[in-house]
Every structure is written in C-alpha cells, then in structure tokens.
C-alpha cells in the first residue's frame, strides 16, 4: 500500500486465485441481506450450497480475442451458481464461436462477462496491432491483460533500453491482448490494443521491428 515500487515480495508473487468478478458483488449484497434478515434467509443460503449446476470451464489457457471452440470448454458442476458470473452449460452451443473479451486461464470458470460479439473487441476508439518481438524486447514475465508501454526506437539496431521515452524514443500506452511465444528463438507474437489514433504509428514501427514492450504499473519490478 505505502510503497508500491520496490516490494519484490509483493510484486512478483503470482496469485492463483481470483477474488470475485464484479458480478460477485451481488454476493456481498446477499451477505448484507443475510445479516439484516437473519435466520430465514441463511437457511435458504445453506440449502443452496447443494444445488448443483453445470458451468463452463476452460480446458486450456485462452487468450483474450480467442474464438471459443468446443474443445476449449468442459462442464463442471458447481453448487450455488445462481447469481454468480458463470455461463451455464445449456449455453455451451451458443458459446462456441464467440470471442473472449478477457483471458481465461486453464481450469477457470468462464465469467459470463467474458464473451462478447466481435464489435466489443477492440473497444470503441481502440485498435489492435500485431507484432513479432525479438527476445529482449519484452519482459519475459509479461502476461495478457498487462498494461504496457510500447516504446518505439529510432532505428532497429540500437539497444532495447528501458522505459525512457526521452531522446529518440517515443512511448505509447497499450494493453497486451495476447501473447504467444514462438517455439524457436524466443520470438513472441503479441497483439497490442492501442488508442486508434496511435495505431498507424505503432503498426509501422512494429513492421520495421522498432518496438519494445515495457510493462508499466508493473508486477515485476527491476
């Protein structure tokens, strides 16, 4: 809380847990209602724990922007799913072919906010730029969803430097939409969501292999 920058303990731990999606705030409301109304509703809540429902779960890591295929999904039975942000298994068929707005990791329940029609991705005023990044031009630990800065260097031969956007370099804010490391040589194929106004410049720099990706508001410090 107090020092955000250099707590390596805090910033580097990968936490394999999600608290709640925004939808699950409903449960908090529900909890508050429980306290207010007392035993009657608590009894209902306890009863609900045994109601099982099939929900959709990812069988592998699915990046944002991914078109969902049948083999990406399995059904898990969970109890008390009413009111949670899940996709019930009766929507399996319509889910196949839709596009993910957010990355979903293997074994995770798909939140019902995860799916959007094509138009929702990218958002209004945003554009998606693809780039192939050489090793050293991106932090190895970067993950889809990360806020990054795209740094354009003046020529392709120079060092890949740091986050400075001062002399000769220019930086654009972006979000890493997808990230895939190619088998050979450590090259990464990325999709960057940038402001539509910056897209042309970023895309041409990407084509000339003059961009580096720097993670900002980093989880991994240096």
């Amino acid at each position: 809380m107090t020092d955000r920058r250099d707590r390596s303990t805090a910033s580097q731990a990968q936490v394999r847990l999600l608290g709640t999606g925004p939808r699950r705030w409903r449960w908090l409301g529900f909890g508050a209602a429980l306290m207010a109304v007392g035993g009657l509703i608590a009894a209902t809540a306890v009863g609900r724990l045994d109601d099982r429902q099939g929900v959709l779960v990812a069988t592998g890591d699915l990046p944002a922007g991914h078109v969902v295929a049948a083999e990406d999904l399995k059904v898990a039975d969970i109890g008390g799913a009413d009111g949670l942000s899940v996709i019930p298994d009766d929507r399996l068929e319509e889910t196949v072919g839709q596009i993910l707005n957010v990355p979903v990791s293997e074994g995770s329940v798909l939140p019902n906010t995860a799916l959007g029609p094509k138009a929702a991705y990218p958002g209004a005023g945003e554009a998606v730029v693809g780039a192939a990044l050489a090793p050293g031009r991106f932090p190895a630990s970067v993950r889809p969803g990360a806020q990054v800065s795209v740094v354009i260097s003046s020529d392709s031969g120079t060092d890949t430097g740091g986050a400075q956007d001062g002399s000769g370099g220019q930086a654009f804010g972006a979000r890493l939409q997808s990230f895939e490391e190619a088998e050979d040589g450590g090259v990464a194929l990325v999709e960057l969501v940038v402001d539509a106004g910056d897209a042309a410049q970023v895309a041409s720099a990407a084509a000339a292999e003059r961009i580096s990706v720097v993670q900002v508001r980093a989880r991994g410090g240096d």
Partner: protein
Amino acid sequence: MARTVAVFSLGGAPGVTTFAMALASVWPGKAGAVLLEADAAGGDIAAWRRLPTSPGLVDLAAAARHEQTPGAQALALLAHAQTLPGGLPVCVAPATAERAGGAVRLLSQHPRVLAARTGPAAVMDLGRLVPRSPTAQLAVAADTAVLLVHDDLAQLRRVKEAAAALAAGFGELGLVVRDGRDSDTEIAQAVELPVWGRVPTDAKGAAFVRGERAGRRPGRWPLLNAAAALARRLADGGATASAVAGPPAAVVPPAAPPAPTATGRA
C-alpha cells in the same frame, strides 16, 4: 525443498484455512500447489467458494485405499480437486465434523497419496491438531509443518508445552505468528521453535481468499505477501536456514531435530 506442507493450529482459529489457501495460491513454480482441506472438524472452503463438496476429501480418502501404484497415488490428490477461478486446485472437506472426521481418519491410514514427488506441491489445512488423533497421523505425511499461532500468552504457552512432542513428530516444523508485538527472536526463545514468518491481520486479504472481494494486485496485500515470502522459502528448502532460530541446541529438548545453525534474520 518442501513438497507437502501441513498447516495447523493448536486452537484459537488463528486463520489456518485462510493462510493455507494463501500459501497454496502463491506457491512458486509452474506446477504450483494444490490445497487439501483436511480439517477433521469440517471445512469452510466449499461454503466460502460456493463449491460442492464432491469431488473432495471424501472421494480422495475413498480412492486412497485403492491407489497402489506410485503414479496413481501421485495423481489422486489432483484428481479429486476442484479448480478455483484463478487456477488454484482445492480438495475441499465436507462441512460437518461427522463426515470430515471420517474422511480424515480414512486418509490417515493411506497417506501415500499426499507424498507425490512430482507435479504440484501439496498444502494441507489440518485445522486444529490434537495429539494422537487421525489428524496427527495425517500430519506425518508432510515433510514440513507450519504451526500458526496468535501472539498471545495462552496460545504461546500451549505451543511451548507441545513443542517437544511436535518437533519430534515432524521433519521440519516452524511457527508463523499472527499479529503481535513480540519480536521473532523473543517468541522463538520463549516457545523453543523457530519463527518462519508473521502474518498480519488483513481484512481485505482474508475477504479475497474467502472469495468475497476482488483485487487487481492481491499479491501486494499483507496476507498474500506474507504467504508468498514463506512459500518461496519452503519451496527453496531454506526455511530453517533463513528463519529466526529457536534457542541454542543446549536448551532444545532431546526430542527436537537439530537446531538450525544460522540465526540471522532473513
């Protein structure tokens, strides 16, 4: 390098389930850790996370009787776990002591399913440890044990009285102290066990673990942060070497394992 970690208390609900879950969720390495809720008094995680109690501890205990090959044993825990959003596999206990106690007893007779040498590490929430109970037998499957204790007189006294017997039963045993103002060194000397870490009261972190609160960077919150520090130490096998040690060997009861040599703070 710890592969199976038992987390327990001697009573007083210092947050064993919460800390065990936090510890498992930040376990380093690609395979991470799976959380086994093996509290004979009944589990909380299924209710916190709105999960059914099957697959879970009861199924694992039933399967443990049949799994003969090391390969099948290694897979059993994961096979009876459910995956929480975020990716943490948890094998949950039923809510009642009646059912959970039976499953813990059964599992304690076939603890080999907890000693997998490959795949994810296992973090066990053993709840409150009672001497000579099935829980205590189950604890023996762990190669490292973490005793969570509040920094208060009654609890520390209980720990001190049990220290020698506990230390004899576990390969490696250390304390994690919840809150309190005493220094690690003072506590370690008072109870004659090393202090491996401190866990502060962190309402946000605890709510996050219960699944009631979202967080953009929960790893920065004190609870998860404390868990991550311990997870790294245990996974590296450096728990005793880098912890604040107990008293010098001369005053350690004979039953205790060799006292750690380094006494410096991490």
